[in-house]
């Protein structure tokens, strides 16, 4: 671009010659130049605006077009993408701690009918009733012909039944896919698993929802689509559970008990390795709960005695009194306490079992070994009600257990509303307040764990955190050693299992009579409990065995004490399960022949 000078000499000279002002020429030129500059920049700005406009227009057109396409087109899955297993699993599996399946899903079919499409409703009804005995041909025919256009016939069909229905060959009978919950082990862990049923149902699928146990408590986790392929791992060991179940069932029959419960717990992590409650049920075919006015829900097989059964646990509580007295430094295991029975307290008389008298003085260890009510009561009076309450609270006896079962929060311990001294006395030997065997297991685990609190759990713990300190290791060890002596020379002598140094405490509590039958306690109905810890020198497991209304009839008169009923059953459970848990018995080795014996001496 050529730049024109503002004052061209030729025009200046001619202007001067004509007597004009040369400055007007300069101004005129300056104006022209400015106009030119203005036009150029306006052009550039217009170009930019146009470009931006076109860009925006295209962007909006693309977005609008895409939206229109999405709105107008048929939805379709990308066909080339690979499908994962996530879609198939509507509900996560449940496995035991070693990955063996406890609950899984199975694809079956449901049967529904479109009566308007039926060729011969009468024949269909007859043939269906022949395949499914629980269906009534006449009622079915009435429902087929009352004008409705849709009805469910059955929720689940086996493949054989499905084929049989196919063979009826009526166009009005239709199948829909159904994912059903399957418990391959049947009754084995029925109370832990609970059961499942269908929620919202459609023809093409149905919701599977948990109805009890861990299936309901962790329903959200099991149904979480993000974790559908990842099984829920429980702390239960299936082998141990099977052995416990077998032994407990045999023991319950042998002791003529109405019910039984067993809990086996790891004392460091609080993991429950086995939880059995008898009688039990098949979670694949969960029975209806008892709803009659006179029915006691505790008589239903659905009732989980280990968790929901809130009982007076009897003498098993005495060790807590003794342990607290040791912890407070009031006594040591050899201190002599007054155990002169019967003990008069106000209008109450505290007696020993069968009116015996172990007194006048007993060492604290012997109070536990002989299970002296009076001795324990004296210890409790030394401790005092407030401190006793605080200690029992720290052991978890005042709240429901935090177990991952839907039944657990409902099983609150029964605590006396007021705490006068007579309650302090009765609570010290396990009467007047009620708790579940699960509470007892957690509290015994705390003692066995060297005084660190233990939270019972049904989920496998890979890195359990240490609990709070409830009592010193020294008092806890002293308490375990007292429990050991109960087995070696006390009320639980049948609990000795060679090699496993069982320590434990028996408890026999009379069953309370319902108010309608006069209140008070039954004379011939008891709940027997044996709370044990093994091996005593390095406690690893806690086992609680509870028998409901047992009676041992091998002697001349029926025996109803825990030492004769719950203890032998617990001993057999330990004998069977301890090897499965990988515990080596600490037995002196007997050489099978002289040669090897000589070798052994040489070394």
């Amino acid at each position: 671009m050529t730049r024109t000078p503002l004052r061209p000499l030729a025009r200046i000279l001619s202007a001067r010659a004509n007597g004009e002002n040369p400055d007007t020429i300069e101004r005129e030129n300056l104006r022209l130049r400015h106009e030119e500059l203005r036009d150029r920049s306006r052009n550039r700005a217009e170009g930019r605006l146009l470009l931006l406009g076109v860009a925006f227009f295209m962007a909006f057109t693309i977005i609008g077009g895409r939206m229109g396409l999405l709105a107008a087109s048929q939805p379709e899955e990308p066909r080339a993408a690979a499908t994962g297993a996530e879609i198939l699993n509507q509900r996560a599996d449940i496995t035991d701690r070693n990955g063996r399946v406890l609950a899984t899903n199975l694809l079956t079919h449901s049967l529904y009918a479109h009566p308007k499409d039926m060729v011969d409703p009468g024949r269909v009804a007859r043939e269906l009733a022949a395949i499914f005995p629980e269906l009534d041909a006449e009622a079915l025919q009435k429902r087929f012909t009352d004008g409705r256009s849709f009805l469910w016939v059955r929720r689940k069909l086996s493949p054989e039944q499905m084929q049989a229905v196919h063979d009826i060959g009526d166009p009005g009978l239709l199948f829909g896919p159904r994912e059903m919950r399957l418990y391959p082990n049947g009754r084995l862990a029925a109370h832990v698993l609970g059961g499942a049923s269908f929620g919202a149902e459609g023809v093409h699928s149905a919701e599977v929802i948990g109805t009890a146990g861990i299936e309901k408590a962790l329903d959200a986790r099991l149904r979480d689509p993000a974790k559908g392929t990842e099984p829920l791992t429980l702390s239960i060991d299936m082998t141990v559970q099977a052995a416990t179940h077998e032994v407990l069932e045999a023991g319950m029959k042998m002791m003529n008990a109405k019910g039984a419960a067993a809990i086996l717990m790891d004392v460091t992590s609080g993991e429950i390795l086995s939880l059995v409650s008898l009688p039990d049920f098949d979670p694949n075919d969960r029975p209806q709960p008892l709803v009659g006015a006179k029915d006691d829900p505790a008589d239903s097989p659905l009732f989980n005695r280990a968790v929901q059964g809130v009982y007076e646990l009897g003498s098993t509580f005495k060790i807590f009194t003794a342990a607290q007295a040791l912890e407070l430094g009031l006594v040591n295991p050899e201190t002599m306490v007054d155990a002169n029975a019967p003990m008069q307290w106000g209008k109450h008389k505290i007696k020993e079992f069968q009116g015996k008298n172990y007194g006048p003085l007993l060492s604290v260890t012997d109070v536990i070994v002989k299970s002296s009510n009076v001795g324990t009561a004296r210890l409790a009076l030394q401790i005092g009600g407030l401190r006793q309450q605080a200690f029992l609270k720290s052991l978890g006896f005042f709240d429901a257990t935090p177990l991952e079962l839907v039944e657990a929060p409902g099983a609150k311990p029964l605590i006396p509303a007021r705490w006068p001294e007579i309650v302090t006395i009765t609570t010290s030997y396990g009467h007047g307040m009620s708790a579940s065997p699960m509470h007892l297991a957690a509290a015994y685990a705390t003692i066995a764990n060297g005084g660190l609190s233990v939270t019972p759990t049904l989920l496998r713990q890979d890195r359990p955190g240490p609990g709070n300190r409830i009592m010193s290791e020294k008092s806890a060890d002293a308490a375990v050693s007292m429990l050991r002596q109960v087995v070696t020379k006390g009320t639980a002598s049948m609990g000795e299992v060679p090699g496993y140094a069982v320590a434990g405490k028996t408890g026999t509590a009379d069953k309370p009579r319902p108010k309608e039958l006069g209140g008070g306690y039954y004379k011939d109905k008891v709940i027997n409990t044996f709370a044990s810890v093994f091996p005593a020198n390095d406690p690893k497991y806690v086992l609680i065995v509870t028998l409901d209304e047992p009676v041992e009839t091998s002697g001349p008169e029926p025996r109803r004490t825990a030492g004769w009923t719950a203890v032998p059953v617990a001993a057999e459970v330990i004998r069977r399960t301890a090897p499965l848990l990988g515990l080596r018995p600490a037995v002196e080795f007997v050489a099978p022949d002289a040669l090897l014996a000589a070798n052994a001496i040489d070394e």
Partner: protein
Amino acid sequence: MRPVIYVLSFLAVMALAFWAYRENYATQQALREVSGLNREIAGLREALSVQRAEWAYLNRPDRLRELATLNFDRLGLLPLEPEQFGDPKQVAYPPEPLFNIEQPVNVSGEEEPL
């Protein structure tokens, strides 16, 4: 020169059309295969879950216990008991070779002096 370019470009268009036609059908075929495979995978997954359930059902402790009882003559299986834990000392190792006696002098030489 110009007609040659026209002919060549026409041929190129024809070739590309033929190629696109083949690609289209090959893609459709591949998609059909994929959906067939997906169906097969879904079926196999379903079969797998059924077989897992069946395996768990066949291995349920009740049944294994019954089978062990039925076949006791042949297998002799009993529940694990504490007595079955062994000790390395119970293993019969081969005895150490006896001291080789060749000459009576050797023997007297090994004796401790009185």
